């Protein structure tokens, strides 16, 4: 891997982040909506202060958030703040900053998505590989088919179905939220179990909703690899099925499947956000959803930009491990 390649990819990453930031900055400003005014109008409705005050408040807010400056100056301030890791302040939960809100929420989201993505990647790929493997026992191959059928169902719908059948009808698991109402978070075992019980359905929804995609792509890949001369020659060598499966089959699907994982990152994050909303779980999705409901635009933009940066960075980072997965890949 040459230094030039690394530098090029990092510059590309900055380009992606800059483009995303620019889109996120300018699109809302094309709209006639004034977030501050709207926010204050809402406060006026609920808080009951006279509408006459609004104009002065708008002016002072605009000054506070720098919204009275010329657009380009605002833009440079914004990009400059971004470079220092500043995503602005929340309109709704002022004076808390957007970064603070994100940092409160991110552990929940990260834990849920990390566990479910890894599990569904492993399960899906194994099932898909087996489904494409002509020597696998018949029952094992049919076992993979239902998972393929799940492939079109987004995790959110899976969540609604699971809520209905398991939580609502069977009353086997809770209907949502992070832990039972009235319980104060503590370090006891019962609280840990309670927490876990609330995470099972969302996790299941995310796994079931994404595992089919892996089964499908792995099956397609497996069928292609099975036609390859090197698999054929491996059989002529008299290798056992296990060795061929592991070293000739799975090993060669690793690069394309990891690439697939990288491409699926945006879908994973999107699903996570919406599933959190369905299950009323704390996390970045719920924070985003609250911001949407409360017209807290600066938080919306901040969260979107944060996730974009995280996903793009991860994508570029994974590229650097490709040469380990396939010796033919040379980054130059």
């Amino acid at each position, binding site marked *: 891997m040459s230094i030039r390649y690394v530098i090029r990819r990092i510059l*590309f990453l900055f*380009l*992606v982040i800059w*483009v*995303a930031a620019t*889109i*996120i900055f300018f*699109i*809302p400003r*094309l*709209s*006639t*909506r004034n977030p501050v005014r709207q926010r204050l109008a809402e406060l006026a409705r609920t808080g009951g202060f006279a509408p006459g005050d609004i104009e002065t408040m708008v002016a002072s807010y605009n000054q506070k958030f720098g919204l009275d400056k010329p657009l380009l100056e605002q833009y440079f301030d914004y990009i400059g703040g971004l470079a220092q890791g500043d995503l602005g302040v929340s309109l709704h939960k002022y004076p808390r900053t957007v970064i603070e809100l994100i940092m409160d929420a991110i552990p929940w989201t990260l834990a849920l998505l990390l566990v479910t993505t890894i599990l569904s990647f492993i399960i899906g790929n194994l099932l898909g590989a087996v489904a494409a493997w002509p020597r696998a026992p018949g029952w094992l191959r049919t076992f993979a088919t239902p998972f*393929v*059928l799940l*492939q*079109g*169902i*987004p995790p*959110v*719908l899976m969540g*609604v*179905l699971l*809520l*209905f059948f398991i*939580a*609502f009808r069977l009353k086997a698991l809770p*209907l*949502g939220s992070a832990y039972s109402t009235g319980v104060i978070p503590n370090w006891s075992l019962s609280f840990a179990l309670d927490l876990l019980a609330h995470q099972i359905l969302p996790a299941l929804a995310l796994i079931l909703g994404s595992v089919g995609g892996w089964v*499908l792509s792995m*099956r*397609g890949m497996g*069928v*292609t690899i099975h*036609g390859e001369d090197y698999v054929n020659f491996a059989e002529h060598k008299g290798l056992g099925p296990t060795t061929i499966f592991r070293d000739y089959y799975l090993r060669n699907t690793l690069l394309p499947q990891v690439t697939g994982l990288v491409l699926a990152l*945006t879908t994973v*994050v*999107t699903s996570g*956000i*919406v599933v959190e*909303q*369905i299950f009323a779980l704390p996390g970045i999705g719920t924070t*985003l*959803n609250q911001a*949407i*409901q409360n017209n807290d*635009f600066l938080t*919306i*933009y901040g969260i*979107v930009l944060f*996730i*974009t940066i995280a*996903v*793009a960075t991860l*994508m*570029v980072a994974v590229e650097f491990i490709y040469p380990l997965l396939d010796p033919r890949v040379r980054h130059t």
Partner: protein
Amino acid sequence: MATLAVSQPQIRQPGQVALFFRYLRRNKSLAVGLVILLGLCIFTVYGMLTADLSNAYPLSVKSKQPPSLEYPLGTDFFGRDLYPAMVVGLWQTALIGIVAGGLGTVIGVFLGFIAGYFGGPLDSGIKGICSVLIPIPAFLIQVVIAGSLDKRDVTIFTMAFVVLLLAWMVPTLVIRAQVLTMKERQFVSVAKLSGVGDLGIIFGEMMPNLIPFIVASFVAATFSAVFASFYLAVLGLGPLREPLLGNTIWAAQTQSAFFNGWWWWPMGPAIALVLILGSLALIIMGLDEISNPRVRKKE
């Protein structure tokens, strides 16, 4: 070097119709997907012709009724009859999917052809823009756009437009890749050498051969458009007054429908969406089998 004169053994084919049926019998995903989609179309058309669609809006009927003969899918908290709501929701979902998916494919085919066929700086430009935009989670940008719109302005068509804004990149890259490989094929070179113009080659020679890919792109783009509009609606960014399927699920969720025992409220639209997305996914799988013969199952 001596090589024998090689002649391929000719295999006598049974009739085309018989082969097609044999093929459909093996390509079950395509067959099943088409059947489900057809069923949904019949349901929607029948509903639009027979049901009172004005009941799909709030305060039309008695609220919170479970499914019964009078209200086959029940009614919701706001007094909407969920059966006409489902019919209208299906129709609107189809509209968003076809408008956004169709336009996305048209743009994709156009840009893909320009990039792939003419190459040069145009190609690197289009490819560059796509590669920069693809790592940005499209859905989140859609959230920003939809969130910046005044909620009163949001209609089915603004939804479709928001979804479309980021739905053209994947078709562009798919078609571009196909055009690039096809450009090297012999029949294109032959046409070029015999003086056929660029437009003649594009429409006369390449387009007919790309139809399977364009159809597959269209189905895939429709799938992602339905998907994206559904997700936006679940976050409460849809056209709030319309009974779009995702909106209904969002409304049910904000009113804690399961918690209050109104299970029918979110279940109807959820099952409808499962059927729509599931059938589209099956069709995509089936088409993939056609355009990628190595995946074809052996009998």
